[in-house]
């Protein structure tokens, strides 16, 4: 069976030095959801842009449904839908006019387009707002319209670049339901995300990339199995104490604790037992933690576990404070340079 998406040893360098993609290979089965995970600047967006014919690769092969994106870009463009990193809607146009524009530029017949447009507006809960300029839309509505626009021409392969970044939890859940519905209809979806939770919920397979290289691949379950199920965070008075605590806690779990700043982090399989044990050990050493938290692993923890160091500080920033498109663009620049 032809793969829906196939990358072979893909390279892309910006300028002379910034390797956005440094030999990336993976394949996506048709009719599945595939997750591409990584922090800002990892190369996710570059990979999506090459697959959607927006950028040219320096080296390597990218295929969509068996068609080489550099050799047959016009054909590939008729097979795909793209909802890029920014909600790319024309804010002077209404929601319906945005869908009209994208549909016409996809060379759809007018009658067919009209029908498709109203059913998409309905499906995405935008019927009431259909005739309002999109500058009056909320962030979530814009994102939904953006995804609707990428679906107008019935793409067989859909690319969603961080579809839920900047959305509130309710809108995020809506987008997830929508993506699952598409796959039920037979569409192949490649989505990039910074959120492990999102990949966990949606993707059957995923790859994690960092600095333009694939650092892990598999199902969400196998990725999580590679690390402790839970994370124990201990805050201490100062860095010296943190190092002492980490030394003392070496015995509680197979994996050694990690220190960053005044915090000690332990990946654990059996949370409650280890918390008790860790506190006993620390008490014996005369160390009193200032904070203590037991939490589910985050993507950051996956990175820590995979690479041995934290992902860029930007990651946390991006999760906590969805920045404006302008801010994100600038940050991406910085990450590349």
């Amino acid at each position: 069976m032809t793969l829906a998406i196939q990358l072979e040893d893909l390279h892309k360098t910006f300028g002379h030095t910034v390797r956005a993609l440094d030999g990336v290979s993976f394949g996506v089965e048709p009719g599945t959801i595939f997750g591409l995970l990584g922090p800002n600047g990892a190369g996710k967006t570059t990979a999506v842009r090459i697959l959607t014919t927006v950028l040219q690769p320096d080296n390597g092969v990218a295929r969509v449904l068996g068609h080489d994106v550099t050799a047959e870009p016009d054909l590939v463009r008729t097979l795909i839908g793209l909802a890029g990193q920014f909600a790319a809607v024309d804010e002077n146009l209404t929601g319906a006019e945005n869908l009209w524009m994208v549909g016409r530029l996809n060379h759809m017949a007018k009658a067919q387009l009209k029908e498709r447009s109203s059913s998409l507006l309905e499906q995405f809960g935008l019927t009431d707002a259909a005739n309002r300029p999109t500058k009056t839309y909320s962030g979530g509505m814009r994102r939904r319209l953006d995804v609707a626009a990428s679906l107008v021409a019935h793409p067989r392969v859909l690319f969603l670049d961080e579809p839920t970044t900047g959305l509130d939890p309710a809108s995020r859940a809506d987008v997830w339901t929508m993506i699952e519905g598409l796959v039920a209809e037979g569409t192949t979806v490649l989505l990039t995300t910074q959120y492990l939770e999102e990949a966990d919920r949606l993707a059957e397979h995923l790859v994690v990339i960092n600095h333009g290289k694939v650092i892990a691949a598999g199902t969400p379950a196998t990725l999580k199995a590679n690390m402790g199920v839970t994370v124990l965070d201990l805050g201490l008075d100062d860095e010296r104490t943190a190092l002492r605590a980490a030394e003392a806690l070496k015995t509680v779990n197979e994996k050694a604790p990690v220190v960053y700043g005044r915090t000690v982090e332990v990946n654990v399989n059996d949370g409650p037992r280890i918390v008790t044990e860790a506190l006993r050990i620390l008490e014996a050493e005369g160390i009193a933690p200032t904070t203590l938290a037991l939490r589910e692993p985050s993507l950051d923890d996956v990175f820590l576990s995979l690479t041995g160091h934290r992902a860029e500080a930007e990651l946390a920033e991006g999760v906590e404070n969805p920045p404006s498109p302008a801010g994100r663009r600038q940050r991406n620049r910085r990450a590349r340079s």
Partner: protein
Amino acid sequence: MTTTTFPTPHVPAVGSSPSGGRLYWAIADMLTVTKRNLIGYTRVPEAIFFSSVQPIMFVLLFRYVFGGAIPTPGYHYVQFLLPGIFVQTVAFGSIGTSIGLAEDLHKGLIERFRALPMSRWAVLAGRTTADLCRNLFVMALMTAVGYAVGFRIGTNVGEYLFGIVLLLLFAYALSWGFAFIGLSAPNSETAQLMSFPLLFPLTFASSAFVPLQSMPGWLQAFAEHQPVTILVNAARDLMSGAPKPDLVFPPFTTVVSTGQTSSTVFWAVVWSLGILAVLAPVSVRRYRRRAL
């Protein structure tokens, strides 16, 4: 989301669409983008209004403040000035092309367009065509303003309208050039700032506001041969007519235009088509290749 049927893939590729070939779709795409941009103008009428204020200010400034101090042999100053202001107005209007494209780029629309099976020329052709429509409106307005300040057609309506067409052609060619700036600038504010250093010398070191003979020799050499002067001279010949020798006073002893309309118009057309032929492909290449 209730259906489980496999959706019918929609497969018309460029050049193999159900009705019509590559050229048909290139034109259809261009019209779609043009319409989208024109709808945008109607949603922000303030932008059109305030972009018309500046040229009107220039008319008032030069007509009533500076005009009295500028001798223009062969013409009353208002007859000399208005064709020049018209050229300046459409030339500055082409900054709008660069701003519009810089905004499309910034908002991710160019990324979306590049992933669509549309003609590679359509985004720029649609933008420049919409800006051409805006210029048409602006020229109608400026004609009315000209009449209000005392300008009168010195030839006939046919020649005057031909002058307008010539200006619009020039503006259209410039728009394709300014598209390049819009696609190169990091944002729309910078696109605007990058455009001024190009337009200022072209419009002010020209025959638009003062006779070239009043400039120092080295500047005259530039001003005489640059396209804005050539356009202004052609527009002046077509709109205000030939200079009148009885309006020549010291210190000038000759009139500022030769009044050879066919020659000035010819070179104005050559310049406009030349700019279009060189800059349009360069800008389209920029559109296709720009890193996002």
